[in-house]
C-alpha cells in the first residue's frame, strides 16, 4: 500500500457530492417543513408520507425510480440530452440526485419537529411589531430553532456522505470520474484489494465519528442551556 500514490479522488468527490446535497436539502427541507406544517391535516398526512418514504425504502428502489425518471430514455433525461447535450445519469453529479432524495427526510423531519415546538407568540409578536414575514422567519424562527435545524443538517450530511445503493445505480463506478468512498470500498473489496479498502473504511469511520460527535455536543449544549433556564426559574 502506498499512500503517496493513492488516488484521493473518491474522498474529494464524496465530500463534494455530500456538501452540494446538504445545501440543497437545507433550504428545501426547511421550506417544506415550514409550509407543510401549515397545510390542512389530510394534505399534510399525504405529503408527509411521500417525503418520508425514501427514509424507509431500500436505496435500490430509490435508485430504480431515479433511473426511470432521469435516465436517457425518460422524458426529463431526453430533454436534457436534446437541449443541453447533458446526461443526467452516470456522471459525478448524478450522485447528488440520489443523496438528496435519500437524505432529505432526515432534514425535513428534524426541522418539522423543531418548528412544531416553536412558540407561535414569537411570530405574532414580530408581526405586531411590523416585521415582514420573511424577516420573522430568518431572524426569529430559524435562530430560535437553530439546534434542531443544525442537527438535521448534520444528519443529512452524514447520510449523504454514506449513500451507496441509489448512488451506485445512478452514478455507477468510474475511477476518477464517479467514484465515491462507498463505491470505492465495494470495488476494492470485490477485487481483493483489502489493504486499500481498510484505508477507505478508516477514513469513512473517522468522518462519520466526527459528525456524530458534533451532533452529541450540540445536544448536550442544548440540554445544558435548558438546565440553565430551569435553574433561573
Amino acid at each position, binding site marked *: 500500500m502506498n499512500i503517496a500514490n493513492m488516488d484521493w479522488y473518491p474522498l474529494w468527490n464524496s465530500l463534494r457530492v455530500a456538501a452540494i446535497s446538504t445545501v440543497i436539502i437545507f433550504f428545501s427541507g426547511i421550506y417544506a417543513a415550514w409550509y407543510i406544517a401549515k397545510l390542512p391535516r389530510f394534505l399534510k398526512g399525504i405529503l408527509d408520507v411521500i417525503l418520508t418514504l425514501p427514509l424507509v425504502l431500500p436505496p435500490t428502489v430509490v435508485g430504480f425510480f431515479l433511473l426511470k425518471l432521469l435516465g436517457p430514455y425518460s422524458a426529463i433525461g431526453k430533454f436534457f440530452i436534446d437541449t443541453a447535450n447533458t446526461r443526467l445519469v452516470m456522471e459525478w453529479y448524478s450522485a447528488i440526485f440520489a443523496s438528496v432524495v435519500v437524505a432529505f427526510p432526515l432534514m425535513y423531519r428534524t426541522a418539522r419537529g423543531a418548528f412544531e415546538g416553536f412558540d407561535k407568540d414569537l411570530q*405574532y409578536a*414580530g*408581526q*405586531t*411589531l*411590523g416585521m415582514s414575514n420573511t424577516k420573522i422567519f430568518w431572524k*426569529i424562527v430559524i435562530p*430560535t430553532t437553530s439546534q434542531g435545524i443544525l442537527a438535521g443538517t448534520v444528519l443529512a450530511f452524514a447520510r449523504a456522505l454514506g449513500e451507496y445503493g441509489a448512488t451506485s445505480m445512478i452514478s455507477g463506478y468510474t475511477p476518477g470520474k464517479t467514484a465515491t468512498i462507498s463505491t470505492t470500498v465495494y470495488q476494492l473489496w470485490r477485487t481483493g484489494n483489502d489493504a486499500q479498502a481498510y484505508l477507505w473504511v478508516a477514513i469513512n469511520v473517522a468522518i462519520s465519528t466526527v459528525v456524530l460527535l458534533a451532533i452529541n455536543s450540540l445536544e448536550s449544549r442544548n440540554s445544558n*442551556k435548558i438546565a440553565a433556564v430551569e435553574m433561573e426559574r
Partner: protein
Amino acid sequence: MLRVNFRKQLNNFELKVNFEADSEVLGILGPSGCGKSMTLKCIAGIEKPDSGTIELDGLTLFDSNKRINLSPQNRRLGYLFQHYALFPSMTVEQNLLAGIRPEDQATSQKDIAEIIKMMKLEGLEKKKPQFLSGGQRQRVALGRILLNKPKILMLDEPTAALDQYLKWQVQLELVELFERWQKTILLVTHNREEIFQLCESVSVLTEGVNEPKQSVTSLFEAPQSLSAGILAGCRNFSRIEILDLPAGLFKAVDWGLVLQSPKLTADAINCGAYSHNFKLLKPEDSAAINQISLKCHYNFSNGAIASLVCSPLGQEASNDAILYLEIDSSTPNLPQSGESFNASLPPENIIFFKD
C-alpha cells in the same frame, strides 16, 4: 377611539364581542377559555373574525362586508403577550431594536437610550432574555412595544406569569406607565385584582359574550350577572323568593334564611354577598337586622384574615347552605371549628341578580 364589534365561531361557543374604548384603561374580565386572548388576537389581526368590524381612530382595521383585513404589521397595535414573547436568540438591546420600524431608524439611538432608562434596563443590554427575571422580561417587552410607537396598548394577563411578590411591584410599574401613556389601553385578565388596581372601566366576558362596559367600582358593588359576581369575587349565592317587595323582605332559599334589603327588585332571582361584608356579633350585642345564627365548620386563619366556612343553624345537612365569611383575625372570640355564633349581613351589602 377603538370600536370593536365582531363574531367568530370557536370550538365550543361563538365569540360575540362588542365594545368601544376611548383614552382609558379598559379591562376585559373573564374566566379561562372565555375568548379573552382570541379577542385581542382578532383586534391585532393575528386571527380573523367571521364577521363584523374593527375600527381604530377612524381607520378600518377589519370589515367583513367591505373585505378589509389589515395585516398585523399595518395595524400598529402594541401587544404584550402573556409570556412576553421576547426573542430568545436576541439580547435585550436587539429585542428593543426589533421593535423599531424601518421609517423610525433615524431617531432610534436616542429613543433606545430613553427607553432603557425609563424601563430600568441599564446594565442588562447584552443579556439574553432567559437570564432575566419575570419583571425584567416584562419591562423589556413593554420597552420594545413603546419603541414601536403603537396607537393602542393591549395586555394579556400581564402579571399572571409572576409570583405574588413580583406581582405588586410589576402592577405598580404598570400604573406608572399607564399614567404616562394617555391612549387606549386594553387589558384582559381572569384576575380581579388586576382589574381593581389597573383599570378604569371593565367589561365582563363569559362564554364568548361580553357585558356592557361599566366602571370598576360598579362591577364590584353591583355586578350585572351571576358570572360577573363570581368574577368580582363574590362567593355566597342563593336563589330567592320575594316575600314583601315594598319592605324588601325575601327568603334566601338555599341558605334557609329570611333577610331584608332596600335593594330588592321585582325581577331579582338570586342574591349574593361578599365574604368580607358579614359582621361578627358579640354575645352582648342587641339583635341586629339580618341577624344569622351560624355554625362554624372550619376556621382557616391566614395572617390578617380568618376565613370561616359556616352553615346557618338548622341547615347543617344542606350542601347549598354554606356561607363563606372573612373576618379580621384580630377580632376577639373568633369562632373556632364546631362552635356556633351570631353574625349579621348589612341590608345594603346584599347584591341581587336577574339571572
